[in-house]
């Protein structure tokens, strides 16, 4: 230990390189960096707000509607945070939607609800989280140690988890009867529904985890160059498992939120949610090939899509048009990002 400290100390005294060079033009470097990409997303979001305000006026621009947008964004948002980590590391998780369905079914089983009534509503939450994390663990072990391609492993989980949820529930809807649970999930804090708070907390925690911790550094390093990370001594396989567990865990949280919002558990919860999640993450600026991830971008991506849905609903537009618009936004955002990225220092690669 002492040896390391002296090395660090040496480095301190030996530091002569100028600090200024990379800060030479803060505006330009900010635009080129992640904040520049986020700026583009904020502009897109602002444009959507203008469209909403122009077409629906007061109906769109009021606090209640803002909360509606956020509430709609909250579940996809939470899961998107977990998936952002997986994608940043160069992986993919297609199973989160199905896993949500499974977690709601297991957590709302009569036996679980009975036990929760006898002990605490938290038991339902823990069961949902455990099921989500367990599914993630299976994904992670298959991918890291079984060398199954992530796309296939999580595709199998997508199909399998949905099937298991149908088997367990007998395809019936299981009503949540635990009053305390429902009360908590419907409660508000400072006038903001708890679902939105959960999204905010998960997003903040995710940002911190990705940008300020060794866990995040490992994630980005593995996504940037898996072999180099392995040869540098990073325990790549173990970390991959953690990442899929994390994604499963956020699916578990999503399951709890579904139970609260719909007051029922069913195997159809979260159907096709993985597509919205991946779209939001990619629009947000996280690279599908890994090595670059942005929580802020993911949050903005989720908000863009949920605002879009809201604007369309306000104008009584067909859901098919909605779907078409989302597809166009996805492609448009990626095209724009590539132009943005091309202006950055990455260009030197050529």
């Amino acid at each position, binding site marked *: 230990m002492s040896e390391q400290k002296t090395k660090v100390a*040496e480095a301190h005294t030996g530091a002569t390189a100028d600090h200024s060079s990379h800060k*030479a033009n803060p505006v330009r470097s900010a635009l080129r960096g992640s904040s520049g990409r986020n700026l583009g997303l904020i502009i897109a979001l602002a444009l959507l707000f203008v469209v909403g305000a122009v077409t629906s006026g007061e109906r769109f621009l009021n606090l209640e509607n803002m909360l509606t947008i956020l509430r709609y964004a909250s579940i996809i948002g939470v899961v998107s945070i977990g998936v952002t980590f997986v994608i940043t590391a160069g992986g993919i998780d297609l199973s989160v939607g199905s896993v949500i369905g499974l977690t709601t079914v297991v957590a709302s089983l009569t036996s679980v609800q009975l036990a929760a009534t006898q002990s605490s509503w938290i038991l339902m939450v823990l069961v949902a989280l455990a099921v989500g994390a367990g599914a993630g663990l299976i994904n992670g072990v298959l991918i890291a140690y079984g060398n199954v391609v992530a796309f296939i492993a999580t595709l199998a989980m997508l199909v399998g988890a949905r099937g298991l949820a149908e088997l367990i529930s007998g395809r019936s809807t299981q009503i949540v009867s635990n009053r305390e649970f429902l009360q908590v999930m419907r409660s508000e804090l400072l006038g903001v529904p708890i679902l939105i708070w959960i999204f905010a907390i998960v997003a903040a925690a995710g940002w911190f985890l990705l940008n300020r*911790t060794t866990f995040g550094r490992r994630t980005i390093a593995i996504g940037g160059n898996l072999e*180099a*990370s392995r040869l540098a001594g990073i325990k790549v396989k173990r970390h991959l498992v953690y990442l899929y567990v994390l994604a499963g865990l956020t699916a578990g949280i999503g399951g709890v939120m579904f139970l609260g919002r719909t007051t029922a558990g069913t195997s159809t919860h979260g159907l096709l949610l993985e597509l919205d999640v991946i779209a939001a993450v990619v629009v947000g600026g996280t690279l599908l090939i890994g090595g670059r991830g942005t929580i802020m971008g993911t949050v903005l991506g989720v908000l863009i899509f949920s605002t879009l849905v809201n604007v369309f609903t306000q104008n009584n537009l067909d859901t098919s048009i909605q779907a078409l618009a989302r597809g166009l936004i996805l492609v448009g955002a990626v095209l724009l990002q590539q132009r943005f990225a091309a202006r950055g220092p990455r260009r030197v690669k050529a």
Partner: protein
Amino acid sequence: MFEEDHSQPLLEVRGLTKGFAGVQALKGVDLQVVPGEVHCVMGQNGAGKSTLIKTLSGVHQPDSGEILWEGKQITLAGPTAALDLGIATMYQELDVVDGLSVAENIFLGHEKASGGVLQVKKANALTRALLERLGHGSLSPSTEVGSLSAANKQIVSLARALSRDTKLIIMDEPSAILDSGEVSNLFRVVRELTAQGIAVVYISHRLEEIRQIGDRISVIKDGRSTASGLSVTDTPREQLIRLMTGRDVENVFPPRQPLAADAPVVLEVEDLELDGHFETVNFTVRAGEILGFAGLVGSKRSEILETIYGARKASAGTVRVNGKPLRAGSVNSAVNAGIGLSPEERKSQGLILDEPIFKNVTLSTFERFARGGYLNERAERDAARGQITALELRPADPDRPARTLSGGNQQKILLARWLVHGTPVLLLDEPTRGVDVGARAEIYTLIRKLATDGTAIIVVSSEIEEVLGLADKVLVIDDGKVLTQTNASDIDEHGVLDLVMKGSAA
């Protein structure tokens, strides 16, 4: 001197400049290539050779300067424009598609087809003719390229260039991935091309090679031409080095230091085996000692190194660091015990190219700077800055992405990584691959200094001269067998090759 050259230049470049976000890569490059010559372009890494190549092949657009093709001024709007004129480029990282056949690769992008239907027979016949022209008629057009050696992939790449009406071929360090036999084969091919009137721009660091193959030389330093069109035969080596580096390079290898009598054995390798690769490897390395692995390509030198490091799982034997055995097949165990590896393929195995220098430097130590999982980037940056200063890494900006650095400086990042770690054992696989003459001496000095400071070092290189010049002790390896173990000063290149020949004959 060369003004008497009456042949009309095929390509003429005047005052070419090119800048990227804050970096002026080319500041004024002149070049004149005549048909049928091998024109060598030399320069240290970072001198701007790659940018020049990319400008000539239409990948980059110059900021100013002129490009003349057969006397007419041209602009190369993109790679296709260059190809259409007859300029083909063979990059260092070969751009062949492994999953396609030889013929499919050669006609990639201009497939032989009628009405959208591929004419396989015609393509194969044309391919055969092209390969004949290159003296490689034995290569089958239908072979999958992924199964070919690097040397044969180059031939495919060259055949592709010939498949278009090419007048100029730019070769970016083509010998870097070849062993000596393959290099002489390549030279034969190059001579056949020039005999047919095709001009070759040959990029290389290796002076000996340029002597063998080149007609004229142009030198670039710091993005500027320092010499243009010198005669290969009339220009002494010292002058070329001076033109490239701006200083005199005399002794490339630093002097060996006597080993302290009580220097402890740090690394012990006992009966190490990897099925199908190598058998019963035994040696020890003491603190302050540099051990070199000498052998030809395919001798399994890198495999031994990777097995010691745990990147491959040994089928038998033990590796001990300071007396403690390592867990076989565990890189983590090796790193924790204090072994660092600078891998053979710097870009794909060593660096995260889009991450800044400092994060690459601390890739195996960032957890030390963290507290309770919370990163301390300031301390990391400071540690990196300390190494940047100590190793004279350029540019000295810890936030610059690793991708933008030259080969020599990327190598320094890897050295810095293990210096910050403080490993007592360093394994260096091809530490000077893609590093030019001037920077090589610098890397050698650094390696020797690390040893003097007490690190036990193993150096693997495909250049026998480098191993013998740098190491204290040498293992001569052939086909996974250790032929002999001797002091580096007791053997020369000839002796090593002699042993290897005998070894494979037996």
